[in-house]
């Protein structure tokens, strides 16, 4: 008996060893492969698990998952404070400041390194990191990567159940939550909203949840206007999608209701007023509470408690002025104006890309997120 147990244990060990050996070098994590992704543009960035960086490439209508291997947990984290960041980047790239744009920023949640998507005037994309005030280019040659094509893949050109083929020409936002990569896309042709939830690791058989999201003004006029930016937030264990539209409303959807081929209606929780465009959204969690933080083209940065949003049953259509208290939902404005990009460092720290009143484009972080959120 004892012998047979030992034999079984030994065989199991051998099988395990063999399996691990077989996995060897050719089987990379997350179904990645070695190679050089043909990234034509870097329009948005977001991090997945274990240093996997998702690169939204509008020009290729594709999202690339790249293993940065940047997974070292730092002993300590220093605050970020880079003044005139655009000038510093321009100098490092050997050009003038009018020839570069910072299209997105994202913080690797493991290493706390900041990644920047930069584009030169001629369209050349550059991926950089910022760590301890030092900028370093990130090479995308011979990396572990996987890609998902948003248009020319099997299944995508098929109708979405309502008879529409939804092609993406520009990726407006991407986010990774809970094993899924979410992508909002805009077409340069038809006026519609496309939103996809793609399981990660990517597989050959893409399970696209492509859907159109409707929202109405005053519960009356309904459109499929495209999504500009979105984020997800957790309220009482339930995951919500909160999306800002190109025609200004902020709309809430329970994520489990978003299913392919369905006519999904969201609830308008706020309108952000005339001439204002929501630029970036992030959600922060503190002491078990989720907050939405939102950068705007005209208004200062707003923050709002997700719980207030969730518990509010109606539809809000009043414009939000500074520090306005709406029916049931408090949108509190912070003193931060002209913030172009937001990134979450951790639950205690946010990063802002902000045009300062003196005209300088500064990147800075604050660990006073808690104060901002009060």
């Amino acid at each position, binding site marked *: 008996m004892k012998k047979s147990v030992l034999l079984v244990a030994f065989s199991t060990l051998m099988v395990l060893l063999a399996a691990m050996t077989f996995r060897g070098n050719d089987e990379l994590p997350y179904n990645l492969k070695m190679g050089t992704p043909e990234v034509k*543009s870097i*329009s948005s960035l977001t991090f997945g698990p274990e240093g996997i960086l998702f690169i939204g490439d*509008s*020009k290729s209508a594709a999202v690339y998952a790249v293993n940065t291997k940047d997974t070292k947990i730092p002993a300590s984290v220093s605050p970020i404070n880079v003044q005139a960041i655009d000038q510093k980047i321009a*100098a*490092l*790239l*050997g*050009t*003038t400041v009018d*020839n*570069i*744009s910072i*299209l997105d920023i994202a913080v690797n949640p493991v290493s706390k390194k900041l990644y920047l998507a930069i584009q*030169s*005037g*001629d*369209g*050349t994309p*550059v991926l950089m990191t910022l760590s301890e005030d030092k900028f370093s*280019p990130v090479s995308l040659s011979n990396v572990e990567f996987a890609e998902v094509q948003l248009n020319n893949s099997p299944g995508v050109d098929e*109708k979405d159940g*309502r*008879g*529409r*083929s939804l092609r993406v*020409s*520009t*990726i*407006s936002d991407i986010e990774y939550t809970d094993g899924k990569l979410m992508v909002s896309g*805009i*077409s*340069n*042709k*038809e*006026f*519609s909203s496309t939103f996809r939830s793609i399981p990660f690791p990517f597989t050959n058989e893409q399970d696209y949840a492509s859907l159109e999201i409707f929202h*109405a*003004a*005053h*519960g*009356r*006029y*309904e*459109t499929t*206007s495209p999504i*500009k930016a979105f984020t997800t937030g957790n309220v009482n264990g339930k995951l919500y999608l909160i999306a800002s539209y*190109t*025609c*200004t*409303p902020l709309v809430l959807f329970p994520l489990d209701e978003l299913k392919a081929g369905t*006519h999904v209606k969201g609830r308008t929780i706020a*309108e952000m*007023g*005339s*001439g204002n*465009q929501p630029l970036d959204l992030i959600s922060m969690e503190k002491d078990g509470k989720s907050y939405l933080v939102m950068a705007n083209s005209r208004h200062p940065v707003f923050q709002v408690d997700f719980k207030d949003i969730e518990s509010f049953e109606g539809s809000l*259509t*009043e*414009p939000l002025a500074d520090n306005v208290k709406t029916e049931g939902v408090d949108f509190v404005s912070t003193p931060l104006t002209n913030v172009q990009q937001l990134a979450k460092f951790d639950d205690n720290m946010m990063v802002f890309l902000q045009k300062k009143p003196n005209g300088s484009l500064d990147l800075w972080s604050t660990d006073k997120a808690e104060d901002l959120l009060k």
Partner: protein
Amino acid sequence: MMNKIFKIRLSISLNLIFFVFIFLFYSCSKESEESISIVWENDKAVALQFEKPSNYKLGNSQIEVRLVQEGNRVPILGELKEERGMIIFSPLIPLTRGQSYEVFKGEGKLGDVLIPNLSSTESGVSLIEIYPTQDSLPENLLKLFLKFSKPMREGKSINYLTLIKGDSDTLSGVFLDLQPELWNDDQTMLTVWLDPGRIKRDLIPNQKLGAPLSKSEKYKLIVSSDWKGLNGEVLDRYYLKDFTVIARDSISPTPKDWLLDIPHSGSKSPLKVNFEESLDYSLLNEVFKIFSQENQEIAGVWKIGNEEKSIEFTPFSNWKKGKYKFRVSGRLEDLVGNNLNRLFETDLKIQTSEQEDSEFQFIAFEVKE
């Protein structure tokens, strides 16, 4: 006194040394400049190439390339390679036209190089067309398309567009500043949206600012000549489109009402389809197909007609006698974003039941002898 003379002598000798230094430096840099060449790829300066300096070791090179500018000159990020006795420096982005760069090895300057501006023959770009081309446009117009002769620079497009109401009333906040902008694949055509929040009824921007366009008013759209091409080309002039605004369009395109001009068999005469209204230019290029009775797609060429109100199809082979189907994709839109299945905005109060959308609509026609 002695002290003073010594000082003067010293300064003369220093001056001499200075002149010798200047001369040496000039001849040295002149010689080096000739040996620094620019590597071009698709009209972009993608690298600098120069002879390998003595004592050069790749990886421990001390070679630096800097942008010549006022203030701090920092080494440009890029890659150094050694190939057949030459050093090749490839920056992360192409070197900028009109800018000078200096190459250093340690403290010693190897030379300067100027990236030339585009020559006058290659520096021009023109705006080929502004769609919709007709000069009376609906009050709820949603989209404009600007088609250029070469790829254009993106990111600040809205700054180059001005809309003037009447003779002098410059309107602000009419166009949506959407980032990333909506360009086609080769970046020669831009889609511009008039602010949908102002068009969609009952939203706050619509209530506060009103729709961007008002019925019966005259407008001028001006495209500034400051807009640059992707490689720094200059727009050859400013462009102007005059138009008058007519009543809002709240009806989806209806293919069953379109008029067909059907050719005879045995010819390659075009099939003409008149929509009776202007439709979306970008979608007209891709939503139509013609099938034979046996469901074979007929190959041929499509040509959009005047003011995007019609389309012509010329087959590669002669028409055969028989029945055909003209297929229209449901995603075809008119100028205000109404497609075959739904309106830009659906009034839920008057919509009674939700209709099943159809992916395609068909118009049957018969080619006779």
